[in-house]
């Protein structure tokens, strides 16, 4: 089986500075001893065709996508999005015949959450390796947030990430102190 019940995919290109945030979070998650029903995948630029169009809703129940997103906050701020919140063109599968987006096809069958980090610097089309300080500092918070999302709690001391009274299911800023 290619993917498990819970799939955590880091998207983005480390060659364009902060766009490497998703793969960098995946590097950190891979250092942890995660349950067998969790797949952690460095999707790079290949999320739409290598993952999102290959997920089997009979097996995979939850998908967490980690990426950068510009939502006008301070660099390093994290936000959680639903598929409906994403602008057209996000994660478009170039190979799809009608340019519809694979996440739209599976969103009713698989619970999808996108965790976005506000970047400080994306250098596309010039290549530059290395995350900004603000985005680097967001990595531990993102790891904790993702573990929380998928229900993994090893009982370690960590700040409570969710704001009280949040509205479920809409884009929300998850600032931590």
């Amino acid at each position, binding site marked *: *089986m*290619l993917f498990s019940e819970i799939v955590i995919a880091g998207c983005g*290109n*480390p*060659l364009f500075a902060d766009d490497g945030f998703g*793969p960098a979070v995946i590097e950190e998650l891979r250092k942890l001893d995660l349950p067998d029903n969790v797949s952690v*995948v*460095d*999707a*790079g*630029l*290949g999320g*739409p*065709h*290598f*993952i999102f169009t*290959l997920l*089997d809703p009979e097996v995979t129940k939850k998908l967490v996508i980690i990426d950068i997103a510009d939502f006008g906050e301070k660099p390093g701020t994290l936000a959680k999005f639903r598929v409906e919140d994403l602008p057209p063109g996000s994660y478009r599968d*170039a*190979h*799809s*015949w*009608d*340019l519809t987006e694979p996440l739209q*096809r599976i969103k009713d069958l698989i619970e999808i959450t996108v965790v976005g980090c506000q970047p400080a610097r994306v250098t596309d*089309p*010039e*290549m*530059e*390796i290395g995350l900004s300080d603000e985005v680097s500092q967001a990595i531990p918070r993102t790891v904790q947030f993702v573990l929380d999302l998928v229900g993994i709690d090893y009982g370690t001391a960590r700040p409570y990430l969710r704001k009280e009274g949040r509205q479920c299911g809409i884009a929300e800023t998850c600032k931590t102190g």
Partner: protein
Amino acid sequence: MSKVVEISPTTRHEGHSKLVLKVNDAGIIETGNWCSITPVRGVEKLAVGKTPEQVPKIASRVCGICPIAHNLAGTEAMEASIKCEIPKDAKMLRHILQLANRLHSIALHDILILPDLYLPGTETKINPFTAEEPVRTVAKRIQRIREIGQTIGQIAAGDCIHPRNTRVGGMYRNVSEQAKTKMYDLAKEALPLAKAQMDLMIAILRNYQARDSVDVGGMKVPLPKTLGFHNQGYLATHAFYGASSLDENPSWDIRRFKEARPYDWYMGEMEITLEEPKYPIGGTTKLGTKVNPQMEACTGIPMYDGQPVEVGPRARLAVYKNYDEKGTVGQNVAREMEYPDCLYEMIDCLDELNTNGKVLADNIPDGDGSLGWASNEAPRGTDVHIARVKDWKVQYYSMLVPTTWNFATCSAALTGAPWQLAEVIMRGYDPCVSCATHMIVIDQENRLVAQKLIQ
């Protein structure tokens, strides 16, 4: 009086490209330019000063769909420069990884081209995502083949997108006997599926070829028997895998390679004089728009023996198996014929693989600055990486990626076709455009001329 029509962006492939077509009164292409409009990037510049371990990982990031080919070609270019021979079992694991990637890629390409084709015996174009039979069963088979390809790649390489198991000097680890058995079982499961898929696709392609006309956005377009024909040559470096400068008889010669600037090759500034709002999806470029392929194209024009050549499945079959069918249908049929071939080869590699064998070279030299190259026969064609490593630092690095080879060849193949079928011809090359940009341009006198593009 010629008219100019532009299809931008082209669809159903990786990356961004466009077609600028000069057509006659009957809509037949007189001159076609297919060009990348992805900005020049500069992985070659980024690579200088990095270690040979880092650079293949960087190279694998330039493209969303070919990371495995770039990782393998990059790693082997480093090994070619430092003159490091890797153990046989490491080679087998790399072959298995590459073939698994090709298996997935052929299946993905089936999805890409099916909407251009008809259900045999009907006037219905195929929607690969419909829930109706018989297409539903075919789509499920395609998905299973893709899953198998990716799963085998994951077992062999630790990850099916960005391989973690490859390294300069071989592989980090061999696989267990249990993992080998799993790959073997999956390959055997895929073989009948791939054969059935090949047979079906060839039947669909032959049905398309026999038609007199096809429908494009409600327009009835005559289908020429010479769709996609060209008289360029073919380039392939191996029937399945690739080659390197360490080979006893290398199948690629760097001295036969030259690259021209896009400015010298593509058409200059023109104005759009033909607009077709019915063309899917969303119509062609509006009348009066200025286009300038010379200045907009982001890739150089690589040439082998002085002319652009075709790379990819047909080139492999033409060079190594005397395949001789020209045109777009011939090209797609060749790709389908690689389905069972890559599984037979994979099973042979698994038979050869000794899971107790070593997978890392005893001696990994630091490099003396020698120029080395390696090619990987990626799904889309010959992917050549060139490297110079000295004292474990990369001094020079260059990537000649498959679609860059095919841009000029496909442009030649557009001539004589109705403009509405230009994308059908282009899709025959299974383009991957985002990584097709290439910064280093060498002119006829071997001078570096295009560094300024990124400065």
